[in-house]
């Protein structure tokens, strides 16, 4: 049985896992998403140009596909052309196979969907025992103002999977609160504390502390890159991360945590397809190697049930 990778070969996480699989001498096959126009999936087989693969020979899969319509190879293709329809059919066929195959999948498409709605994910996190910031989703300017008054310091961010920065409300925003009547907006109480990123790979938990002056440490434009160093979590928090990832059906997850000065742990988000190389490069934590081992041998991995219905 071999490991199938689906995504773009030059992308850091994909390249890192591919390299580590090579070090393990694990049989591997890369489905380069950029070659979607040369790809066909039919009768249980995948063909890319002259290369062929029987999907029944796949024992595990790691995927990080992009929106096919936005690939450079698709930019010259008319949206309603036969080529475009065929490309999207390849995506549909792959996603359908990934959700129903017995192979070990990091991560199944259905398990990654909660990340497309942050408030939906907050409800999940609460059910698994994590503290989450007090949150209001609203089109009511007065409700937004009252929430701000109640909490003093408030941040706003996107609810959907569209990436956005976390930003604090300032007095400049007060006059614009009327705009929430046009589009529901998510506000959260600002929770002060130390940021941590916890990666769960099967049963393994690898955590790092992230130090930045920015409200969102991924926004390095104004404040420069953050300082990142490896750190351990308290055992109970580590276990909560492990069980949350498992409960969400994720073999790989990146959890954004914050520890308050009083020692309470909040979780803001679970990323089902973390760009882990950013943290690996900063800390030396062997995340790619752990993912490759999970794919190739099942070591340190949680066995999958034979059939997944959800």
């Amino acid at each position, binding site marked *: 049985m071999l490991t199938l990778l689906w995504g773009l070969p030059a992308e850091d996480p994909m390249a890192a896992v591919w390299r580590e699989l090579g070090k393990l001498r694990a049989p591997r096959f890369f489905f380069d998403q950029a070659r979607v126009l040369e790809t066909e999936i039919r009768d249980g087989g995948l063909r890319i140009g002259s290369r062929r693969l029987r999907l029944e020979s796949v024992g595990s899969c790691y995927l990080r596909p992009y929106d096919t319509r936005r690939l450079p190879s698709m930019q010259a293709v008319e949206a309603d052309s036969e080529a475009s329809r065929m490309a999207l059919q390849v995506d549909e066929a792959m996603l359908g196979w990934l959700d129903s195959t017995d192979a070990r999948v990091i991560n199944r498409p259905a398990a990654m969907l909660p990340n497309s709605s942050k408030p939906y994910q907050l409800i999940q996190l609460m059910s698994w025992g994590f503290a989450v910031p007090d949150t209001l989703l609203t*089109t009511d300017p007065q409700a937004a103002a009252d929430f701000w008054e109640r909490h003093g310091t408030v941040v706003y961010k996107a609810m959907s999977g569209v990436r956005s920065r976390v930003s604090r409300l300032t007095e400049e925003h007060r006059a614009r609160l009327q705009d929430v009547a046009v589009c529901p907006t998510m506000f959260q109480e600002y929770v002060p504390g130390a940021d941590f990123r916890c990666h769960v790979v099967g049963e393994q938990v690898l955590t790092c502390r992230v130090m930045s002056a920015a409200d969102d440490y991924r926004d390095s434009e104004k404040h420069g890159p953050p300082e990142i160093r490896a750190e351990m979590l308290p055992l109970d928090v580590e276990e909560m991360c492990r069980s949350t990832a498992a409960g969400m059906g994720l073999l790989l997850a990146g959890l954004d945590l914050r520890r308050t000065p009083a020692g309470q742990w909040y979780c803001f988000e679970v990323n089902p397809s973390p760009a882990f190389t950013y943290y690996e490069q900063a800390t030396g934590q062997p995340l790619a190697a752990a993912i490759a081992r999970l794919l190739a041998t099942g070591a340190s991995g949680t066995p999958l049930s034979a059939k997944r219905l959800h």
Partner: protein
Amino acid sequence: MLAVLASRNDAVARAFANRQGAALITPRDLSTAGWQIDPGRPEQSVAVLCGRQVTAPEIGRVVVRLSHVDEAEIGHIREPDRAFVAAEMQSFLVTWLTILGSRVLNPPSPAHLLGPIWRAPRWFALAEELGIRVQTRLPRFDVMRPVTVLGSECVGTWPERRAAEARRLAGAAGLTLSRAWFSEEEGETSLVGFDLWPDLESPDVEAAIGEWQRGDEC
């Protein structure tokens, strides 16, 4: 109060809402001041239905006839912002329907307002596990007839085997409402498709939804 979530262009949903005295909600209605959701205190959430604010406990049932918020639904938003606003509205509706729980037909999945976004291979795999004969090649349309299951019962009268298979599939998938499409060719009945679309044009389905809304099993 019964509410129907649908496209602004869904004439069938609009007619159903009028007959039932239900509130029709379209994505455009989210550009109205007054909606509030607190994920930590779901009972305090507020919707704006028929121009007035309605608390979560006042909402009886919601029938969903919209899979996602399309940009075409929100033409009043500036074109460069429509993709983002559509995504935010989708996420908001997923959250709102999720906190309403079993009052929704069907509870949404994170990326699909109608419920789980399973693709055909997964439905067919589940059916085969349950011992249901499956046909994956496209049959003649005129031999396909959908069996709607609401709750634990089929809507309408069906041959026992087909009804049993539709109920088993809906139950295994954990769905409140579903439609199983069967083909009958040369004396053989096979499952050819499965979806979560409420057929509001069917008098039987409308009656069954009315009973569900009142809290009765159909």
